[in-house]
């Protein structure tokens, strides 16, 4: 990995989650790659994983050591206890969580981590919950942001009213993940049953909006200022809706929208806006992710290294807002078969660390 030239940089030990660089990837490997190019710090990276087959664990040259964490469902006490064990061995200075599902616990334990000398840059619990997909319509109305109309569906009997209100086709979204576009009542019923069985209720019925899919990665300072905003248009989309290739674009309306989001919410930390630009040029916020996206390395490649800027924020150092970035910079994701030995896998599986 390239290292910036110049005087020696202070060493910083940073722990990162989201090492599942799979077809629906977590952002951890991309965050790690961006941090390795920090102009301010020489980072010593510690991986934090949930599964033994998260590819980032076995990627050579990235993480000095990786530790398994308890699943978020184990609660904050288990998380804190495990982080204390890891901290005793690694002297962590910053932790960057990268999964939506773990953020609640990390936000809850952030004060205890701070007391132990571990910094985080996270949104508040209120911010986290306000942008949840269940609350997105209210969030949009509160802040004057255009979002698709939606309603919650708790049982099949509520579907006809939802389709009358939102029209066809209808998008049905799982409480935590998955989305299905239904064109007819039978399709909608089947989708509801599948989504509610997997993710519980309510299922979210959402107005169908079509157009260009654009994502914006950003970093808010917690006082209403966007320190970095980089828009990316998806060029190749997987069957899971993930960008497999994308390109940075120049659009003042997108930058203004992201800055308005940060100003309105006083967002602290990394975020991603998933946006649909309609043929008429309207910008709908389809989802707000409360963390860096998996394509975050593109921001570093385009000249705004958001994870590196987050480190400075975490340490209480000043960060000047970044305004310039390279337009037309592309990423093309690839699949690569890592080869490792069964002993490494066994060590991870048996001991919870590697």
């Amino acid at each position, binding site marked *: 990995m390239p290292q910036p030239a110049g005087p020696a940089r202070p060493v910083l030990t940073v722990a990162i989650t989201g090492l599942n660089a799979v077809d629906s990837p977590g952002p951890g490997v991309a965050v790690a790659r961006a941090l390795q190019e920090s102009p301010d710090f020489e980072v010593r990276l510690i991986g934090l994983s949930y599964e033994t087959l998260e590819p980032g664990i076995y990627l050579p040259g990235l993480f000095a050591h990786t530790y398994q964490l308890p699943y978020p469902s184990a609660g904050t006490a288990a998380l804190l206890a495990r982080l204390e064990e890891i901290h005793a061995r690694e002297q962590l200075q910053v932790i960057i969580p990268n999964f939506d599902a773990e953020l609640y616990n990390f936000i809850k334990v952030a004060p205890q981590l701070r007391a132990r000398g571990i910094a985080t840059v996270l949104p508040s619990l209120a911010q986290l919950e306000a942008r949840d997909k269940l609350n997105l319509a209210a969030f949009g109305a509160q802040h004057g942001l255009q979002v698709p109309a939606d309603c919650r569906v708790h049982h099949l009997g509520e579907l006809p009213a939802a389709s009358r209100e939102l029209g066809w086709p209808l998008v049905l979204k799982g409480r935590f993940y998955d989305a299905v576009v239904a064109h007819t009542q039978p399709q909608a019923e089947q989708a509801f049953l599948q989504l509610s069985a997997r993710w519980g209720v309510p299922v979210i019925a959402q107005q169908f909006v079509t157009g*260009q899919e654009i994502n914006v990665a950003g970093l808010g300072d917690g006082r209403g200022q966007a320190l970095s905003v980089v828009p990316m248009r998806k*060029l190749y989309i997987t069957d899971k809706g993930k960008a497999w290739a994308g*390109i940075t*674009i*120049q659009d003042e309306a997108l930058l203004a929208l992201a800055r308005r989001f940060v100003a309105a919410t006083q967002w602290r930390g990394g975020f991603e806006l998933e946006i649909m630009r309609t043929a008429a040029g309207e910008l709908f916020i389809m989802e707000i992710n409360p963390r860096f996206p998996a394509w975050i390395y593109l921001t570093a490649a385009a000249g705004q290294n958001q994870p590196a800027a987050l480190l400075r924020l975490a340490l209480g150092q000043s960060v000047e807002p970044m305004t310039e970035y390279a*337009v*037309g910079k592309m990423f093309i994701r690839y699949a690569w078969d890592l080869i490792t030995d069964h002993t490494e896998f066994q060590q991870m599986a048996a001991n919870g660390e590697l």
Partner: protein
Amino acid sequence: MKLKPTIAISAAGLLFNPATGDSFAANPVAIEILGLLKEEQTPAAAKAALLARYEVEAHQLDKDWDDLVAQMREHNLLD
């Protein structure tokens, strides 16, 4: 017909729209037309230059011109 000022045209005949990330390949005549428009020539002046340079009937040039304009408008390349 006015090309958006942000549209980049490479020497190899590739167009890039930075607002959408779209790239297009244009043939040599289309590149020549875009070059004339970049010089802010009016459509009438650009057409006159093309009629003088190529063996083409005016009605055929008008038809091809309209096709090009329609494609460029569809791809959001015109102001």
